Every structure is written in C-alpha cells, then in structure tokens.
C-alpha cells in the first residue's frame, strides 16, 4: 500500500477542512512547496493535491496552475490533483501544468460524457474517480449534494467508462481522526477487484494505516494527521507494511512481455448486389426495402457486424456507375469498414471504389487472368486495401481455382495461387469453397488450414456457413481470421450476436 500525503490548498495556503466545511479551516502555513518538499524528503512518492479554491468556487484559477507548475519543477513525486475541474479543458490545463493524474468527482455524475471523454483522450492512468460516501450514498459538489447513486452503482459506472482507480472517502470520518472505515474498503475490494482503491478519511495512527492496508487499499491518502504531526510520515513509511500488497501497475505498459492479442475474430455479412440491389432472398422483416443494400448495411452495422463485403454479381459495364454510387451511399451510412468486389478489372476500377468510400477492394477473376493486376493495385493503392478473392473447388487431393463466378475451371492450384497473391501484395485473402457455398454444411477447414500454412496475412473464410459449431471450426480448425456468411444472416437463422457469442464461448476474442 502506498502512503499518499495530501495537501489542501485554499488561496495559496495549505489548509485542512474538517468534514469539508469551509468554516472550520485550520491554516497550516503559507507554503505548499515547503510542505511538499518535506514529504518528498521523508520518502513519499506521490502527492495528493486538492485545489480547495476550485472546489469552492467551481473554477480553476491561474494561481493554482502556477503553484502546480512550481511544484512540478521542485519535486519528483507523482502529483494527483483534485478540486474544481468541470470540463475537459480544465483537466487538460491541470495535466499540462504538471499533474500526473486528475481526480474527478462531481463530473462523474453531472457530465458523464466528459468523464468518459477524459479517459479516452488522456488515458485511464490519468483519471482517478473520487467517490465521497456518506452511508451508502455518493455525495457531490463538495459533499453538499447527494448524487442519488449508491457506492456500488458508482463503482460500476466508473468501471464502465474505463476508470481504473477510485479514491473513496468516508466523509463522516474525514478530518476527524477516528479511524478508517476498513469494512467499507474490504467490501469494495471484494466486489470490485479490478479497481485500484485509494482510501481516505479518518487516519490518525499507525494502527489506522495498518487497518487500511489490511482491508485491501492500494493507497492511502493522509492529510491532517501528517500536517498536525500526529503521524510522522517517515515513521509511517517505515512501519509499513511490507508484507501487504503494494501498488499494482495501473495498466499494460509498452514493451512488457508478450500477452495474448485481443484481435477480434471478425464476423462479416456478405451482400450480393445486382445493378444496385441486394439479390438472394432476404428473410428480414421490418426493413422498408429489403432489397436496398444501404438499409441492410445499416441494420448489420447496428447488430454488430465488424465489416461488410459487397459483391457485385452483375459486373456489366453499365452497372459500374451504379455500384460506385452505391458505395458512396454505404460509406455515408455506416461506421465500420467495408470491402467491395466483383468485376474489378483495372487499377482505375479499384481506385473508383476506394475514392467512393470503400475501405478495400476485392479482385478475383481479373487477377487470375492477369496476376500483375494485383501487384499494380497493391502498389498504387496499398496492400492493406487489396483483397484477393479466391474461389476454389476440391479436385482429388488438391484445390483448383475457379473464375467467373465458378463457371470457369482454371486448372490452377489454389494454394499456389494464394502464395503468389500474397507475394504480389494482396493484404488479405477471401477464400470461398465452391463445394460448400450455399450448402450450409460448414466451411472447408482443410482448404483454410492449407492456405493459412503458407500465408502470413489475414484469411476470411467463406462458403458453407451453417451451424454455429461449423463457424467456430473455421476459426479453431481452419485458423481463419474472419468468417463471412450471407444466407444465415439474411434469413435470420443466426444473428451476428449469436455467432459472436458462440466464438466467445469457444474462447476467441470478439467485439461484443
């Protein structure tokens, strides 16, 4: 457990309030810098700085920021700052003035979007949630107002917005020196083991410190007891507690040893379009126009699709402009990546689709006929945007590449073609088993395995999606990075959520 001395500053002076009451102020002298420096010398590694002027007047003054800047240059201690932060800009000012973390309280309840935004923009290590409790209710606005939220719900809320550290003050004990609320801390650690817990309020003796440590606190903020000399910091640190838990790292740091990747297995609905309309029967109700690819795309997007694939099966000259227009409308409507394929015969075809808003283009027959097309597209438009679609059928012990929607047998070996496609710059392979396509009998895991053995780029499994187990097998046995399906989604056999939950149950990471 880390001991964190606290300094409360009001109008430039170090003070201590009793139970948050501005009428009961003890003035410990003028110089926050001197007190901080004494704490650092005594061995403190972290300082809790409270801007009482800010908390009182609901704003952040230039004087306080100036003090913070001076503290920053005068000490190596980590500094966490609370009080009076009401906006993202306030948080940024305090961090820029030298704070390592900010402590937010009222904002958590009155402007949760800002609190969430703060975690996203500044990082979870920089934000500490202050939960000031009386009984079981969290108080806000300098303890004056009830939030109507219980401590348990508040802990869940802060965890949900990505915060990992909470500072819990029992306000009936703060500044009273009557001992810490160990039962409270024990309960929090039991119910929320993922949260780092900083205790505060009521410490006056070394026994109190020990009680906090034994209750599971990761840190303990001590104010008055140190200021008044009831507790001596160096002695407190010395008495500590080496057998008790120390502060765990707040998050993964770059360069630490390898941990499993959370790269999600992607679940991709495929929409076949002909002259701008979805073809293949669609079983959905509640769509204004079941044949409108944009409507369907939005629906899949809402349901949690990770990506979409549009295959233009008409691919006549006239339909190209219809397709480009469709791509534009899809790009306006969805907030996930999508790939467009079918009839891409040149770099210009591919460019037109990307410029219209597609994230990737899939090339199939034209690349088989002219493999250098793949290299050209990859060079001009980037490997990551270039998908090679391979349609394969098993013949004897090997797989043969088909083109023109399966109508033409090229005699080419599919595994060899996959290898060449990657060498030419394809960033991803979309592998369809023609034996399985439309059968619902499961993906050709053997084909997938063989291809995954020879390439080091992502492979999307396609053709044969049927039972949930068959989908899990494509990933488990076939080592596919993504699975693509049409009918099972269109006809509502399974939702995207069903598929993802099945994958999750099989221990694969999914975006849920």
């Amino acid at each position: 457990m880390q001991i964190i001395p606290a300094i409360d500053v009001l109008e430039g002076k170090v003070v201590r309030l009793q139970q948050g009451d501005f009428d009961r102020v003890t003035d410990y002298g003028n110089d926050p810098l001197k007190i901080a420096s004494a704490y650092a010398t005594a061995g403190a590694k972290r300082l809790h700085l409270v801007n009482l002027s800010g908390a009182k007047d609901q704003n952040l003054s230039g004087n306080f920021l100036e003090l913070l800047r001076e503290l920053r240059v005068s000490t190596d201690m980590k500094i966490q700052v609370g009080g009076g932060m009401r906006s993202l800009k306030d948080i940024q000012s305090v961090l820029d003035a030298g704070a390592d973390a900010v402590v937010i309280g009222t904002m958590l309840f009155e402007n949760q979007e800002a609190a969430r935004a703060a975690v996203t923009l500044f990082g979870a290590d920089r934000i500490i949630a202050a939960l000031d409790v009386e009984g079981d209710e969290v108080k806000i606005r300098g303890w004056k107002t009830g939030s109507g939220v219980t401590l348990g719900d508040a802990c869940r809320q802060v965890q949900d917005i990505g915060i990992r550290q909470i500072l819990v003050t029992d306000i009936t004990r703060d500044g009273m020196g009557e001992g810490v609320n160990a039962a409270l801390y024990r309960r929090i650690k039991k119910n929320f083991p993922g949260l780092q817990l900083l205790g505060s309020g009521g410490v006056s003796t070394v026994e109190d410190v020990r009680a906090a440590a034994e209750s599971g606190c990761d840190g303990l903020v001590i104010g008055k007891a140190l200021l008044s000399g009831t507790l001596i910091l160096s002695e407190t640190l010395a008495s500590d507690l080496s057998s008790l838990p120390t502060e765990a790292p707040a998050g993964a740091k770059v360069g630490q040893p390898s941990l499993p990747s959370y790269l999600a297995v992607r679940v991709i609905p495929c929409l076949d379009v002909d002259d701008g309309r979805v073809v293949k029967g669609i079983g959905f109700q509640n769509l204004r126009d079941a044949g409108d690819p944009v409507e369907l795309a939005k629906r899949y997007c809402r349901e949690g699709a990770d990506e979409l694939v549009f295959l233009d099966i008409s691919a006549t000259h006239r339909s190209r402009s219809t397709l480009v227009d469709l791509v534009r409308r899809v790009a306006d409507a969805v907030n996930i990546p999508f790939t467009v394929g079918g009839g891409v015969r040149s770099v210009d075809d591919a460019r037109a689709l990307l410029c219209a808003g597609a994230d990737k283009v899939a090339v199939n027959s034209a690349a088989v006929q002219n493999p250098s097309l793949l290299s050209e597209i990859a060079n001009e438009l980037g490997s990551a945007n270039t998908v090679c679609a391979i349609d394969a059928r098993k013949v004897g012990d090997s797989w043969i590449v088909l083109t023109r929607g399966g109508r033409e047998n090229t005699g080419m070996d599919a595994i060899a073609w996959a290898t060449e496609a990657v060498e030419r710059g394809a960033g991803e392979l979309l592998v369809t088993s023609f034996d399985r396509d439309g059968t619902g009998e499961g993906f050709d895991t053997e084909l997938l395995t063989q291809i995954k053995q020879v390439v080091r780029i992502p492979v999307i499994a396609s053709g044969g999606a049927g039972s949930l187990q068959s989908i899990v097998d494509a990933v488990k046995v076939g080592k596919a990075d993504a699975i693509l399906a049409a009918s099972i989604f269109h006809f509502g056999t399974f939702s995207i959520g069903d598929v993802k939950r099945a994958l999750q149950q099989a221990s694969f990471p999914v975006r849920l």
Partner: protein
Amino acid sequence: MNSVSPPIGILRYNAGNIGSVQRALARLDIPVQVIETPDQLQDVSGLIFPGAGAANAAMRDLRERGLIESIRSFQKPFLGLCLGMQLLFDFSEEGTTECLGILKGKVKSLPENVIRPHMGWNRLSTGGYAYFVHSYICEPDDPGVITQTVQYGSPICAGVRQKNFFGVQWHPEKSAEAGDQFLLSFAQLCK
C-alpha cells in the same frame, strides 16, 4: 454539437482520401472544414490530420504546401489518425523519413513475429474495440505521453497526447461506437 460552433478542420494533403473522416464527422453532426493551406487554419476550432499513403510522400507534400511550421505551432486541439499520429514523431522507419518532431520518439516497423499489417478490431486498454490497419508503430521516448495501448504480440502504443497534440493509431472514423465516442470527445475538447 450545434452548427454555430466553428468547424473542425480536416487537413487534406498528399491527395489523400479524407472522405471517410469527413463522412464520420458529418454523421455525428460535427461541422467540418477541409483545410489545404496554412491561412485556412485560423478559421477552425481544432484540426484532424488523417493518415493517407506513405510517410515520406506525406511529409514531402506537407513541406511543399508550407504546412510544417503551421502544424508545429498549432495551438488548438490537434488529432492525428494512424499515419497522422506517426508523423507527429521525430522519425519513421517507413521510407527513412524525418517527420514533424512534435513528439520525441521513433516510428518502427511491427516486429517479424506478428502478422503485418495489424488489421482488424483490437481491444483498447481504455475499453472498447477499435479498428486498426497499420504496419508501423510509434515508440515515444517518454512513455508518459501514451494514453492507451493495445495487445498485439506485445503491448503497442494506440494513442498519445502531448499538450494539444493528440494521436491514435486506429481509425475512429471506422470504429463503430468506440470511434464515434472518440470523435465526439475530441469535438467536445475543441468547443
């Protein structure tokens, strides 16, 4: 977000495709202005710097347009996406490119032992899944600028901040809810 607040700029450079970023902000009702020259920068409340193409071509284009100094001295919230974040650093191994040098550190190739590019949805240390497509990673000299990480072989830098300069390695414009939330957060900061 109301339409009276000044727009957020999107920097167009290197003939890059800024369409998806533009569309994402439009979907979220965030007013946008496309920026191509330094003098347009005073009209915006913040600036988004999308990733487009390769590092060396992008830097060449910024130089030719006279944008380098304007970016370095930009005072309002600035957000680099993917390559846009990488260019904030001193140097990139991609094409041996000297970059903007706003953040200290290097941009290196992803190691051999992972599939390159890192493509797909990965879980951010700050919560939520984000969409990544990249082969190079940022290695800041000061780990304190890292705002979020993601596991890919080892923890890699997924977001940075130094003063008003923010960057993410992923694509908020393509990252569903997590992306929308991030862009709205940035817009809130710009207000």
